């Protein structure tokens, strides 16, 4: 059996998805704390959020229900949902 993606893999997926959506955060996302609200910190709006959720779902195959969006704000939230 193939083991699922590691937390490290998921973190790099999240970083690359957010960077692709908002290239201007590339420098800052590497050093962001795991419990910091990414959308607040980076000034991302609902369209960005939709773009990020779509890409994450496509890269990992994990569905993200609509109503979950507002609860997935930090690196920990996102990695937790995707693992």
């Amino acid at each position, binding site marked *: 059996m193939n083991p699922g993606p590691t937390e490290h893999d998921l973190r790099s997926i999240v970083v690359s998805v957010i960077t692709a959506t908002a290239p201007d955060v590339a420098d800052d996302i590497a050093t962001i704390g795991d419990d910091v609200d990414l959308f607040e910190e980076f000034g991302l709006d609902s*369209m960005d959020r939709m773009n990020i*959720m779509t890409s994450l779902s496509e890269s990992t195959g994990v569905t*993200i229900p609509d109503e979950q969006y507002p609860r997935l704000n930090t690196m920990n939230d996102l990695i937790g949902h995707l693992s």
Partner: protein
Amino acid sequence: MTDTELFSYAMPSLGADMDEGAVIEWLVEVGDTVERGQVVARVETEKSDIDIETWRGGTVAEIVVGAGETVPVGTVLMHLHANGAEHGPTPLPSPAPTAKPREEISFPLERDNSSRGPRPAPADRAPRVPHETVWASPLARRLAGERGIALLDIDGTGPGGAIRSSDLPELAALQAHSDHPPTAAHENEPRSRTERIRSVIAVRMARSNAEIPHYRLQYDIDLGPLTAHLSTVNAERPIGERIVPAAALVRAVALTAQRHPELNGTWRDGRFRPGLAVNVSVAISLRGGGLVTPTIRHADDVTLDETMRLLREFTTVARTGTLRSEWTAITSSITVTNLGDRGADLVHGLISPPEVALVGFGRIAERPMVVDGVVVARPVVIATLAADHRATDGAIGSRFLSTLANTLQHPEQL
């Protein structure tokens, strides 16, 4: 016989405030065949980086301005061996000779009509190219050609909607610039994108605040039906096709603007000119400051799904810095600003001249509302309208917001 002619492609004007641009990158090379509408280069402007398209197909003959060079609007960037006539902005007719060789003519000695060569049958003649008529003054045509502005997208104020030079988007900007002499101390220092955007906003908003007598109204709109509708719709859809409330708000403004033409248009030369279409500009803020305002053409005819798709594209592209010229080089008739799902409760904005109205949305939040005599928590957005008192009065603005609220009570009709 060939229909090829040499066509000079010039630095287009990609928005109201552009007077020069830098070629960042060429996406074509000499010898490449290009089609009408193909992106040929990426250009950096004061506002953002923009992919520019050619409006003539053909073969690239020469690239005149290299990547990295900054040139004024109207400077020839490349030459194309263009294909047959296509329409779009009409450039000045160059005195280039028409390449059609003259028919050989023989002079019969006798005056006998039957001895003359047969006239070409009508079917042999070149078919007439159907032509979409754009009424424009010669000056407007010439300026648009020089600056790469598509006349098709502009609302004219002349007879029958004919376009005059004052209808071209950049002329308003030229006036704005003349109000604002450059500060000599910083003239030669290169400015960052943020600084450039900041200075454009500074000029435009100072002009708005100085010239436009704003009146402002607000309206609490119950978004219960909308959020319920979107949950149902989104639950059945793959994640990439889901719709966020912000798209529904823009769509609702477009439908409302279509029903209230008094607020959809521009104020120029001392009077209101109704927009020929509902072209909704959407303010998108940039991280690090500044905003861009791409426009949805004929937004009242754009479905909610398509509105959502465009807004996602706008956002992505605004972040990555390449707005397409088709989103910026057209006359917008009304602007929407949305503070987003975590912003302030409401916005009292400034109109983007020469428009006469700006619709603002605050954060959608659970707020107490009285429904059937009972206080309940409902998702509510506070919509605001900033409108030009020269063009309309509060009663019309009030009816606009009321229509907007009603429209949002029937989300299935969006």
